[in-house]
């Protein structure tokens, strides 16, 4: 059993990394346009839309999650779920970025106010 990389292995790695690279590039490219508000959804339903422009603190889902908006970035600072993945996630500020807390079914999404109307329809 040879363990060295074969030609196809290298090709596979290159293709995967290229896909990852272009997905990242696409996200950066689309992401920075007109992101100015965040949508908070619980269990698929929109609980509220908040502006990224003003600093504020939001209690989500009756206090299970605590969201802080500061300097145009939204960050989950507290959650009562055991894994705390949403708390450890970095603050979001770009369009389409999201913080997701699976145990509490909470989604915080960055959006631009222009297409949030469209989103409400398409959801």
């Amino acid at each position, binding site marked *: *059993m040879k363990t060295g990389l074969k030609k196809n*292995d290298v090709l596979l*790695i290159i293709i995967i990394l290229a896909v*990852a690279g272009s*997905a990242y590039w696409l996200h950066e490219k689309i992401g920075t346009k007109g992101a100015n508000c965040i949508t908070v959804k619980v269990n698929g339903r929109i609980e509220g839309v908040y502006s990224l422009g003003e600093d504020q603190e939001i209690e989500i889902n009756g206090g299970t999650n605590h969201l802080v908006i500061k300097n145009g970035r939204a960050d989950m600072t507290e959650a009562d779920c055991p894994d705390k993945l949403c708390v450890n996630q970095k603050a979001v500020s770009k369009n389409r*970025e*999201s913080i*997701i807390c*699976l145990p509490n079914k909470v989604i915080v999404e960055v959006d631009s106010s222009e297409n949030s109307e469209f989103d409400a329809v398409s959801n």
Partner: protein
Amino acid sequence: MKGRAAYFGVFTALALIFSYVETLIPISFGIPGVKLGLANLVIVIALYKMKLGEVYLLSVVRVLLSGFIFGNYFSILYSLAGGLLSLTAMALLSRGKRWKKSFSVTGVSIAGGVFHNIGQLLIAMAVVETFHAAYYIPVLLVSGVVTGFLIGITAGEVLKRLINVF
């Protein structure tokens, strides 16, 4: 036949132990959801040593057992989606007529790692009903390559030494 059943038991036990060892390793890569996937090492080795049906059974049994012991309903769902998608990708690359022998263990394992992550992301998107998590794809692809590479190298070394045992 008796021998096969015994080997299946050993592989199941090994996979379960690796799932446990994984929970003991304090290293998190600093990114949510990224882990080494040690149990996948056993699956990769089994892929080269057992019948495909047995490997699928091993994969499902491992996920269910480790899910009941260490996880919960959700983790079983995620592991099952990731595990089956990853195993299918690996089986295609290692046994598919088209690619037979053209990928090394490492390449097969990398495909496994990547598709494991893709499977989990798909379930995550279905559970929270959002497509926006797709921005996480680059992270998951790269981490799949890295962990798949590490597991593949290890599996290759183990397989080299296992040949005479079977």
